[in-house]
């Protein structure tokens, strides 16, 4: 394995057990604070941060789904001119200058290959490839995109797509996998991303060798990034990317596949080619129903965080939502949460059910420790102290227009409140760690509504 000198370092201010507060120094002038970060998936999420940047903490990073980035940036561009004149609003370029961006590629898109999601991914791929280092012509980009889409749709929930993607094209001698690597790097540069997690195959228990395929894709990404740096080209720092299917986590059973993952991660970090580890675990809603499987996830994260810490590198857990507090307890440096606080797959496909109230989304009440549906919020408006608890950075009750329009409700009320609630919880978590508490996240989660309470201390 090639080796390199790492560009980033974890700085620990205070440690309590495995938990720590501090920063991840990603360059001389930028330190990412340890804690929770918002995850931008949709155009709506981009609107929320551009309209209300005050919700974000100083230097707090943002994680973007790379697959949706092209569409999200189109929205950002449309909003940019309006944001310059809007009190409190911010332009996208100013946002990313003050909040380091991580671009990642959620594994469910290539694994499940829902047609809607594959179509939207293709729109971005086709437009980005001509600007990539591969400099594809528009007609070649069109052909490559069609090929990627056809192969994804033809082979869901298998590794056939990846096998085909690594075969050289008989004419150009370039495999699709190479175009996909360049696509991810170009997407990251569009978002001015400072940190990147790659587009790599998900690890599945039924195919133990998938661990090695994921490892090799990671090495390929790291190789390309290291070459860019060697040539003096700006490139994001690359994280050893670990997307994992839920079947890997059996109840209270040490899994052989996870031991291999840990050993590979150890070797990868020692090479200096990777600045940390990015992990995404699919199926958290089903895992949460089993205390034994939760134990397996927590044990795995703890061991992975030890690997990261031993190398002064960061462990980034993608999209566990409020359960991320338990991840921080066991040594994750960063955990992200989606604006609607969902923890299931990002690209589920399908449409919203018939019940209109569901389209308003849920709001996290961090004090009563549960999620409020729209109807519950309406009921609370009649109480002596109406609405949600005051957190200082956002409103506690929606206005009349927001109560009538699901979109307004989500953009201007529920999503901003969720960001504020997660940041409030993280700030509480940090102050407990500073006081020497080793598991403040799990202590909080043990009294949360079920099944999230499975992530608490038992």
């Amino acid at each position, binding site marked *: 394995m090639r080796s390199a000198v790492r560009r980033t370092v974890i700085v620990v201010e205070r440690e309590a057990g495995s938990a720590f507060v501090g920063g991840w120094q990603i360059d001389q002038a930028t330190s990412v604070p340890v804690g929770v970060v918002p995850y931008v998936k949709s155009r709506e999420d981009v609107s929320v941060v551009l309209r209300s940047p005050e919700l974000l903490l100083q230097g707090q990073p943002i994680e973007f789904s790379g697959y949706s980035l092209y569409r999200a940036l189109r929205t950002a561009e449309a909003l940019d001119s309006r944001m310059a004149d809007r009190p409190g609003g911010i332009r996208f370029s100013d946002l990313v200058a003050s909040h380091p961006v991580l671009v990642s590629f959620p594994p469910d898109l290539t694994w499940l290959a829902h047609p809607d999601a594959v179509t939207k991914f293709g729109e971005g791929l086709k437009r980005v490839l001509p600007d990539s280092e591969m400099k594809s012509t528009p007609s070649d980009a069109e052909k490559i995109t069609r090929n990627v889409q056809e192969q994804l749709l033809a082979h869901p929930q298998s590794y056939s797509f990846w096998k085909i993607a690594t075969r050289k094209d008989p004419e150009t001698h370039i495999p699709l996998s190479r175009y996909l690597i*360049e696509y991810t790097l170009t997407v990251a540069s569009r978002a001015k991303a400072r940190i990147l997690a790659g587009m790599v195959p998900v690890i599945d228990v039924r195919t133990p060798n998938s661990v090695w395929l994921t490892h090799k894709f990671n090495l390929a990404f790291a190789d390309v990034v290291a*070459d860019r740096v060697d040539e*003096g080209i700006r490139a994001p720092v690359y994280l050893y990317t670990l997307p994992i299917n839920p079947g890997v986590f059996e109840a209270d059973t040490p899994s052989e596949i996870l031991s291999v993952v840990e050993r590979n991660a150890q070797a990868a970090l020692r090479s200096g080619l990777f600045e940390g580890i990015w992990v995404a675990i699919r199926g958290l809603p089903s895992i949460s129903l089993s205390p034994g499987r939760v134990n397996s996830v927590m044990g795995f994260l703890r061991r992975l965080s030890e690997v990261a810490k031993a190398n002064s590198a960061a462990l980034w857990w993608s999209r566990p939502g409020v359960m991320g507090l338990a991840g921080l307890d066991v040594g994750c440096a960063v955990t992200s949460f989606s604006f609607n606080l969902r923890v299931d797959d990002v690209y589920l496909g399908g449409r919203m059910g018939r019940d209109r109230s569901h389209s308003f989304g849920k709001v996290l009440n961090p004090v009563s420790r549960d999620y409020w549906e729209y109807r519950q919020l309406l009921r609370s408006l009649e109480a002596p102290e109406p609405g949600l608890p005051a957190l200082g950075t956002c409103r506690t009750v929606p206005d009349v227009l927001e109560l009538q329009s699901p979109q307004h409700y989500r953009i201007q009320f529920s999503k901003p409140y969720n960001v504020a609630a997660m940041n409030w919880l993280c700030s509480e978590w940090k102050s407990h760690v500073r006081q020497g508490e080793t598991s403040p996240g799990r202590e909080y989660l043990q009294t949360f509504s079920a099944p999230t309470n499975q992530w608490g201390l038992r």
Partner: protein
Amino acid sequence: MGVDPLDEISVADILGEKDSGPQPDARGVRSLILSIVRQNPDGVTAQMVSSSAGISLTWAKQVLDDLLHQREVYSRVVPGVRARLYYPNGKLVHKFLQDSKEFGDQIFRVSVHEGRRTPRVQIQERKFSLLEGEKVEGSIFIDIDNVEGLLSFTKEVLERLNQIKTTQELEHT
């Protein structure tokens, strides 16, 4: 037990690196072509680049045009040679001698290249748009001996601008 086909996939397969004949390596087509031109200070034709990189002539010409626009290379028609020749616009002195800084909407990349007589500083102006990413607007080369002089000259002109502003303000009052 047979070998799982997943086992047979190598990092080189993923990257499409060469096992026979030239193809783009880990650097990508743009960087590969730039390095081919840089390795040939006496000039290369698009045809030579195309066969050396293992890509089509149209593709090679398109990338060379891009590099021309970015002033990474320059081209000219040499008497006696029917095709246009492409030359490197300087080789980086060291990989750390290239950095970019943003000033609002303008991004400047400053790099130091080897020159015939002395090293030369290249200042490249770039613009960033959300949908197109970073695009090169243009660039200038300054011999290293002239950098200080150019900075003083720029300051001189700025001082003149300030004087004009002051005079105009006095006239208005």
